[in-house]
């Protein structure tokens, strides 16, 4: 197959090295043409994200190519060779295929199942296509990898469950309100956690954000950041009837949102569902508030439980995903073998011989009038016509396979003759 994948990721390389490498590899416009200048490289795709750098290529000579690729990468990072050597991994042929499938399916990611990597891989592929650095093999491999990622996504629950507290809260909010578009949120306490949750919520289309903080200037600051409304801390109960989601994260020693406040607010609320998220320790919201009808209260432990359970689910789902990937690697190998020349020639001959046999049978009636020797002559005639016709194409295919470079003829013959 002559496929080589070389790279490093968050598991093999420390941040400082990834940083330096990523900076230069991110300029794909420059790196891709440079890569292609290496004599052994025929096709190449360069994937560079904050957690990994991978170069996948089809090469003419595996050993020389690896050496060439390594020195190329050392050049990019401008780093000590011994140090780099420890961080790099090299996969060949089917191992490379498997690694690529795992990366694209997000099994190799820092947060397993995160969806960004597929988009990044698609972008890397698009860049390679723009620079015309892909051919039959990498085109097929990339599309197969996207397919595998999709399969893993739909057939396993690997991406299904939130694995961060703030995202778990967003997921729950969606299960209560359906669509979060136009919902409004009240943040009580403008800390780091609530900021993160607010970001998630905004990405889901939440409409308005009210921010109440003991230090009013901080509330104003954050309000400016999210285009929200700052609220004076002691007046937050007044906006309660207008909001659907409350995230409390103050450092207050006791409950600052009582059951009574919630009940009063709910009476004035047209849309009577309220989701209370208490991520403060000690807690900010009286647990009794969660007993009110149509009010759902989650505290940090509840959310952490959800996250822990989800992590467990992801682990078991990852096993299923590995099975899918093993299956797909075999499928890819099959395709690759079928692409090889010999089976194509055999299939081509077989098809022609089948046609001759079929036509002889169709004409059996008038052939029956001939004696045995005449019939043999006709069969020989037909066979020799087929051989003459096939001679040049087969020679062409064989020549192509000897050069072991591109294999467009094989693909073309397979398509033209529907083999």
């Amino acid at each position, binding site marked *: 197959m002559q496929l080589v994948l070389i790279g490093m990721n968050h598991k093999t390389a420390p941040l400082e090295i990834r940083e330096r490498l990523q900076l230069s590899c991110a300029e794909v416009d420059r790196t891709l043409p440079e890569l292609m200048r290496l004599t052994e490289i025929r096709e190449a795709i360069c994937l560079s994200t904050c957690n990994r750098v991978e170069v996948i290529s089809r090469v003419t000579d595996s050993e020389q190519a690896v050496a060439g690729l390594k020195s190329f990468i050392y050049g990019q990072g401008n780093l000590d060779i011994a140090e780099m050597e420890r961080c790099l991994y090299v996969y060949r042929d089917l191992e490379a295929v498997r690694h690529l499938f795992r990366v694209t399916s997000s099994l190799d990611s820092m947060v397993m199942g995160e969806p960004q990597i597929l988009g990044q891989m698609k972008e890397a592929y698009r860049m390679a296509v723009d620079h015309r650095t892909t051919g039959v093999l990498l085109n097929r491999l990339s599309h197969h990898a996207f397919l595998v990622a999709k399969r893993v996504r*739909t*057939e396993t*629950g690997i991406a*299904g*469950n939130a694995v961060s507290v703030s995202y778990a809260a967003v*997921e*729950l909010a*969606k*299960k*209560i*309100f*359906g*669509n979060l578009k136009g919902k409004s949120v009240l943040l009580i306490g403008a800390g780091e956690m609530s900021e993160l949750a607010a970001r998630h919520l905004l990405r889901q289309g939440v409409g308005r954000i009210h921010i109440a903080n003991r230090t009013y200037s901080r509330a104003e600051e954050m309000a400016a950041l999210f285009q929200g409304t700052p609220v004076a801390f002691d007046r937050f109960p007044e906006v309660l009837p207008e909001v659907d989601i409350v995230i409390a994260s103050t450092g207050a020693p006791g409950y600052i949102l009582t059951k009574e406040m919630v009940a009063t607010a709910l009476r004035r609320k*047209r*849309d*009577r*569902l309220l989701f209370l998220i208490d991520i403060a320790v000690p807690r900010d919201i009286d647990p009794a508030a*969660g007993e009110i*009808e*149509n009010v*759902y209260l*989650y505290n940090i432990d*509840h959310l952490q*439980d*959800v996250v822990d*359970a*989800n992590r467990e*689910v992801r682990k078991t789902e990852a096993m299923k995903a590995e099975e899918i990937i093993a299956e797909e690697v075999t499928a890819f190998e099959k395709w690759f073998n079928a692409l090889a020349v010999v089976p194509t020639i055999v299939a081509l001959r077989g098809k022609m011989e089948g046609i001759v046999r079929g036509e002889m049978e169709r004409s059996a009636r008038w052939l029956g009038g001939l004696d045995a020797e005449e019939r043999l002559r006709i069969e020989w005639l037909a066979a020799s016509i087929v051989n003459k016709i096939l001679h040049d194409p087969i020679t062409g295919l064989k020549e192509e396979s000897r050069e072991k470079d591109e294999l467009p003829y094989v693909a073309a013959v397979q398509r033209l003759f529907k083999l």
Partner: protein
Amino acid sequence: MMGIVLFKVALAVYLASAVVYGGSLWGRRVMPARFATGLMFAALVIHTFSFISRWLADGMIPAIGLYDVLSFFAWVMAAAYLALQLRTKTRVLGAFVSPVICVIMVIASVELGGGVGASAILKGSLVTAHVMLSITGEALFAVASCAGIMYLLQDNLIRRKKEGSLIRLFPSLRDLDRINYLCLFWGFPLLTLGILAGSFWARIVWGSHWQWDSKQVWTLLAWGLYAFLLHQRLVIGWQGRKAARWSLMVFTALALLLIVGKLFFRTAHNFM
């Protein structure tokens, strides 16, 4: 005859879709539910053809007799559920709707094809309108209660804070509440029109709008209860758990009363 064959095929496909929906719950995956929704749509199409062929064969809309009425009830449930799928993503709700459809279809199949030879007074568009409108209304209430059951389950799951995968699988509370509301909102006027059509027809045939017949009392009770429910929703602002619980209670009570009525009371309204 063709109608009956198609009915049986439709029943089989409904059953298949119910099984696949069950698989969706069992495996905690939405994927099978999508497939099951497709199956239910196929069943609905076959079911529709069954109606049309029966209509063509008899020369009148098949709306008299247990078989036709229940079959139509199931048809409306399936159609309403699928139509609601266009606006809300509540696929797994089918796991609750499809078994009900299946049970109704099975009961209907007991009197397969029967009932059309009913007396001549039952022919006429007023009767057909009465049956179709009332049944449509009641079938919508059935879908509303299915959404209600699911709402209560999901509410419970979110409250208990366990079973994350089930919470994820089940539709959102808002969508379930909306389905419950929409079914109530459209079912009530249809039932009202159905009752009016029936009473006009009673006036023509029996000479008065109202006879204190057990079935009529039941219908009035149903109408009153649903009027109350709709009022609470629209005016008082009932929502969520309370609305779901009530719509489920009302529907169950009415279904039980209907069975009790059939067992213990004689009724002049004995056409099905």
